[in-house]
Structure formats: structure tokens, C-alpha cells
């Protein structure tokens, strides 16, 4: 068989190769998960200190089957897939996605079990080793897949960092969630501590348990962020993870905490119904969230600011979006509460709910307003003029607020008609909530729509790349993985790459192809890279 035919045959099986990969990895994942789960349960059972454990064997048949049937099959299949792993597998999507899913699952179960065991040891729980099986089985799975992920000649060529980014997100979430618990327990103890007896576990055992989880989360975070280098990844999933987890989620948590604290403060001053213990425990919780989420937010916005221009703009737009939503929600609630005060006075016995609502609305308006003003800078509107992300932001905000306004309007109509037909209730009471939403969203819509119109008038639509070429087929050789994307974004064409069997001499760069296409306009174009990198451009008849 000549080399050329061998290449043809290989090309012909490409589609079935894709299918084979997905099926093999799906089966491997299922078998692996079953085996790890089964063996984890058996190990936990072996470590169980319960003297009657021989009676508790109701899962045992399953676990044995998972371990001793699925286990060896998983090992065999993985061994086979690993031995056969070639360039096609490495540059496929199936291999990195398999690795990421297993990496994330095993890391989560392994660390979750580990921290459960460690914190159970300090809290002197009756069965501290309940989760030891998960530590051992899933720990082994994690170590093996971490090794595969970093293997010198078999690591995936695409999405290689997805696993690490998932690990970073998990570590951050565990650390943040449990740090809030630590602070909450500490503040609770310091400021509304018991004035009398406590029996059972001392309060600090709860704190110590939460502290172990926090430190564990920090270690996972640190390992992925610094050691595995997520910190220095640029673009793609890394930026998205930082924006969603580090900026958006942390900012929402921090601002919600600040707003809650503010509304509690107002209630403490002007609402005698708030009991001291509610004030202290509410404030303790809010301060714990602020104390954890704010540093996370500030840290990641710094990290994001050192990235690409679009990421920096995204930070600003995310923050201004959170601000405007907070402000609008607050305004809606204030209108609602103000109308409620018409029907029943705020200081009256039934006014407590409305008064709380009013303070919450004012707090949300204040916090949202400050953040929005600071991020959006309404007094310097021309700062981000013409940036594509700004246009998307404006359209999203006015689109969403228009939908919300229309829904509120329909709700108001429905309630009024229902009240007329069924003759029930006070109209103001029935429509005050949707009316608040309507007023707030209408204002948000009006403002952003006006800005959008103004932007369009000042900066006419950026010239979209004129699509001179519909379909482009490139025949030749290229080493550039981004080749098709680069040519496509420069010409607007749909690009197909056919590799020549007699490859090496006919290499082409995307820049060379784009410049060769200068002035060419046709529905279908064929580009052939010939010997000595000469490019031949052929426009095809329709």
C-alpha cells in the first residue's frame, strides 16, 4: 500500500474516529465513577467502628459488583485508550473534556471527603471515618488524571487548562463559603455569646471544623492559581472564570451584604420592632459575607485589570450592571412600600413588613446607585464610546428591562381586571408590587435606550467586514492551529482546510493567504498552496 492510499484510508475513518473517542471516553467515565464509588463505600465500611457493622450490608452486593467488575474493565479500557492515544486523540475535544470531567469530579469528591474526615476528627463526631473511602478511591483517580493531564507526550492539545480552571473555581468556592461560616461563628460567639450553659461540643469545635474547610479550600485555590498557573493564563475560560466567580459572584455577595447591613442599621434606628438578637445575628452574618466577598472581588478585579482590554471593559460593565439592577430593584421596592403606607400606616401594627421593605429598598438603591455611578460614570458618557461590549451591554440592559416592564404591565392589567370582575380587595394593594417594577424598569429602559441611540448617532455602525467570499477551501499544509479562524475572521468566509498528502513543501500562513485573497470576490474560492509555498487562488463559478 502506498503512503498516499494509507492517508486516504485514514482520512475516511475520521468521522468514525470522533464517534469512537466519545463512546470510549463516555464508557470509561461511567466505569471509573462506578468503580471509585463502589470501592469508596467498601473502604468506608472496612474503617467503620460500629460493632454491628456486619448487619449493615445492604449496599454491599452493589459495591462489590462496581468494584470487582466495573473496576477491572475501567482499568482495561483506560489502558487501551491510553496506549492508543495518538495525535488525533490529543487534538480532539473528547480527550480534554473527558479529562476535565474526571479531574473535576475526582477533585471535588476527594477533597470533600478529606475535609469531612479532618473536621469530623476535631468535632469528635461519633463516626469520623465515614468518608475515608472517598478520600482513598477518588484521591487515586485524581492523582492518575492529574498525571495524564500533564504527561509529556500525551497531554491534550486543546482545552488543556479547563481542568485547572475548574479546580480553581472549586477551591475559591469552598474557601469563601467556609470562611463565611468561620467568621459567622466567631462574631456570633463574640457579640451574642451565651450568657449561660452549653453542653455537648464546645462552640470552638464548630469553628475549628469550618476553619479546616476554609484552609482546605485555600490550599486547592492556591494550588491551581499559583502552582498550576491559572493566574498567568490569558483569555478564554480563564478570563471567564475570573469574571464570573471572582468579580460577578463576589461583587453580588459583597454588595448584598452591605445592603443588608445598611437596611438593618436603618431598622435599628427607626424600627422598634427589631429585636436585639435579630439585629446582632443579622449583622454578624452580613459582616461575615462582606468580609469574605469584598477581598475576593477586589483581588480578582485587580487580576482582571492586568488582562486584555475586553476583560477590563467587562469588569466595568459587570459592575455597572450589578449596580443598575440593584438600583432598579431598590426603586421598585421603595415604590411598593410607599404605596403600602397609603393603605396602612408604616408605624401601625401591620406596617412592620412594609417598613422593613422600605428600608431594604432604600439600602439597595443606595448601594446599587453608588456602584453604578462609580462603574458607569454617567457624567463621562463618552469614555467607552464605540466599544462593541458597551453596545452589547446597552442592548442587554434595555432589552431585559423592556421585557420586565411589559410583564409588570400585563400583571397590573390582570390584577385590575380580576379585581373588577371578582370585586375583591384594595386596588392599590393589588398592584403596588408590579407598579414598582414597572416604574423602575421603565426608567432603566428609557435611560439605556437613549444612550444607545446617542451612541449610534455619534459613532455610526462599525463597518462589518464585507463578505466578499462565501466559502473558502484551502488545499495545502499549515502548522497553525488557528489558521482557519484567522482567515475566516479576516475574510468573513467559511474556511475548510484540506491537508495535502505530500505536505511539507506547501506550507502557508494565514497572513499570506489573506493577502493573496486581496480583491478576490466570489461565492466559492479555492486556494492551493503549491511547491515552494506558492499560492494559487481560483474563484469558482456558482
Amino acid at each position, binding site marked *: 500500500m502506498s503512503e498516499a492510499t494509507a492517508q486516504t484510508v485514514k482520512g475516511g475513518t475520521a468521522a468514525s474516529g470522533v464517534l469512537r473517542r466519545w463512546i470510549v471516553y463516555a464508557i470509561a467515565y461511567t466505569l471509573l465513577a462506578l468503580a471509585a464509588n463502589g470501592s469508596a463505600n467498601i473502604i468506608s465500611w472496612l474503617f467503620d467502628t460500629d460493632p454491628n457493622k456486619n448487619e449493615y450490608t445492604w449496599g454491599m452486593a452493589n459495591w462489590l459488583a462496581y468494584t470487582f467488575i466495573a473496576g477491572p474493565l475501567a482499568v482495561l479500557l483506560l489502558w487501551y485508550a491510553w496506549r492508543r492515544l495518538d495525535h488525533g486523540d490529543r487534538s480532539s475535544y473528547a480527550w480534554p473534556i473527558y479529562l476535565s470531567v474526571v479531574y473535576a469530579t475526582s477533585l471535588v469528591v476527594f477533597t*470533600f471527603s478529606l*475535609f*469531612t474526615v479532618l*473536621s*469530623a476528627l476535631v*468535632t*469528635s*463526631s*461519633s463516626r469520623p471515618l465515614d468518608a475515608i473511602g472517598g478520600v482513598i478511591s477518588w484521591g487515586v483517580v485524581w492523582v492518575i488524571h492529574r498525571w495524564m493531564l500533564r504527561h509529556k507526550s500525551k497531554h491534550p492539545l486543546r482545552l488543556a487548562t479547563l481542568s485547572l480552571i475548574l479546580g480553581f473555581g472549586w477551591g475559591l*468556592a*469552598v474557601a*469563601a*463559603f*467556609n470562611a463565611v*461560616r468561620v*467568621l*459567622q*461563628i*466567631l*462574631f456570633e*460567639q*463574640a*457579640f451574642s*455569646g*451565651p*450568657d*449561660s*450553659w*452549653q*453542653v*455537648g*461540643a*464546645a*462552640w470552638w*469545635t*464548630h469553628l475549628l*471544623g*469550618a476553619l479546616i*474547610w476554609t484552609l482546605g*479550600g485555600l490550599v486547592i485555590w492556591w494550588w491551581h492559581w499559583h502552582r498550576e498557573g491559572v493566574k498567568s493564563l490569558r483569555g478564554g475560560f480563564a478570563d471567564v472564570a475570573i469574571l464570573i466567580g471572582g468579580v460577578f459572584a463576589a461583587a453580588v455577595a459583597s454588595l448584598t451584604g452591605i445592603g443588608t447591613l445598611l437596611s438593618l442599621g436603618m431598622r435599628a434606628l427607626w424600627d422598634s420592632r427589631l429585636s436585639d438578637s435579630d439585629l446582632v445575628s443579622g449583622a454578624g452574618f452580613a*459582616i461575615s459575607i462582606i*468580609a469574605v466577598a*469584598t*477581598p475576593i472581588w*477586589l*483581588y480578582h478585579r*485587580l487580576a482582571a*485589570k492586568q488582562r486584555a482590554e475586553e476583560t477590563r471593559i467587562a469588569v466595568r460593565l459587570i459592575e455597572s450592571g450589578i449596580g443598575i439592577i440593584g438600583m432598579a430593584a431598590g426603586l421598585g421596592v421603595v415604590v411598593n412600600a410607599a404605596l403600602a403606607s397609603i393603605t396602612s400606616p408604616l408605624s401601625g401594627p401591620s406596617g412592620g413588613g412594609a417598613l422593613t421593605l422600605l428600608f431594604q429598598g432604600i439600602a439597595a438603591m443606595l448601594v446599587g446607585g453608588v456602584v453604578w455611578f462609580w462603574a458607569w460614570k454617567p457624567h463621562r458618557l463618552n469614555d467607552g464610546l464605540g466599544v462593541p461590549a458597551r453596545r452589547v451591554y446597552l442592548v442587554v440592559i434595555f432589552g431585559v428591562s423592556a421585557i420586565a416592564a411589559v410583564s409588570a404591565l400585563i400583571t397590573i392589567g390582570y390584577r385590575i381586571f380580576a379585581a373588577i370582575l371578582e370585586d375583591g380587595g384594595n386596588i392599590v394593594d393589588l398592584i403596588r408590587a408590579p407598579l414598582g417594577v414597572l416604574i423602575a424598569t421603565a426608567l432603566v429602559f428609557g435611560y439605556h435606550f437613549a444612550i444607545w441611540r446617542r451612541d449610534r448617532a455619534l459613532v455610526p455602525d462599525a463597518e462589518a467586514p464585507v463578505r466578499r467570499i462565501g466559502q473558502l477551501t484551502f488545499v495545502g499544509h499549515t502548522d497553525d492551529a488557528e489558521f482557519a479562524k484567522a482567515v475566516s475572521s479576516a475574510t468573513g468566509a467559511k474556511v475548510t482546510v484540506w491537508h495535502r498528502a505530500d505536505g511539507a513543501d506547501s506550507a502557508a500562513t494565514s497572513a499570506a493567504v489573506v493577502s493573496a485573497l486581496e480583491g478576490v470576490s466570489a461565492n466559492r474560492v479555492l486556494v492551493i498552496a503549491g511547491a515552494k509555498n506558492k499560492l494559487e487562488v481560483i474563484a469558482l463559478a456558482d
Partner: protein
Amino acid sequence: MNTNDSAEQRNLPLLITMGAVGLLVLISLIVIFTRGAAPAVDPASPEGVTQRFAQAVIDDDHAAAQALLAPPLSKECTPVSPDVDRGMTVSLVRSDVNGDKATVFVDFIVSESGGLFGPNDYVARDTFNLERVDGVWGIVSPPWRMVICEEMWK
């Protein structure tokens, strides 16, 4: 040099926040460690009886716990396992004494696995009902977590 300075300046809000958090933690620790011990309760009072009972149940000492029940449970009791864990904390909130009847409010502080990113802590308020029989306070009905006799379910 210049870039270094501006990087430090941008770090300032982060440093201030971290400093404020550290200060809060420090103040809390000082408050906790300088606070005197809670005053002891009279072991014969409703609070004292509840304290000894809760301790006995958590220590799995059925006989000691049964001795603190009001008659007839203190004599006849078919033991059942209470739903307590050594990692649980029981904390006295307050008590209402009304003649020969008393209600003692306690908080159960439990860290329970099941959260998405770790255990959840929760505080559950519950009540002990006590009665004074022949001058001795005894427990009539404990919270469901501390039920130690089958008869209490009836």
C-alpha cells in the same frame, strides 16, 4: 519603579479591607477571651435539670438521663436511641417558670453535611417542658432529638 508604585496604590483598597477584617477578628477574639465564665446555674432549677439531662443524653448515659424525668417516666421507660451526635452543641436560651410548670428554651447548634461547598451550620430552637412533683423538677417532654423513652412519643 513607576508601575510598581501604581500597582501598590491599586492594591490599597484590598489591603485596607483585609486589615479591617483582621481587626474585626482580633476584636472578637479579645472579647471572647476576656469575658468571664458564664454564671453557674442551680442544678435543682429547671435550667439546671435540663443541663444535666442534655449532658447525660449526649454522653449516652441512659440511667442518669432517666433519673431526671418527671414521674411516671422516671420509673417506667422503654429506652429508644435519641438523635444526638457528639458534634452537636446545646445552648440555654431562657426559661419561663409558671408555678409548678416550666418551659426551657434551648438552641441546638448542628453542623450538617449536605451543603454544596461544605457542611451547613444551623441553629434549631426547641423546648423542654418540666413539672415540679414533690418539690423536684423533672422533665415531662424533651425536644424530639432528645427523646429517650418510647412512652414520650405517645
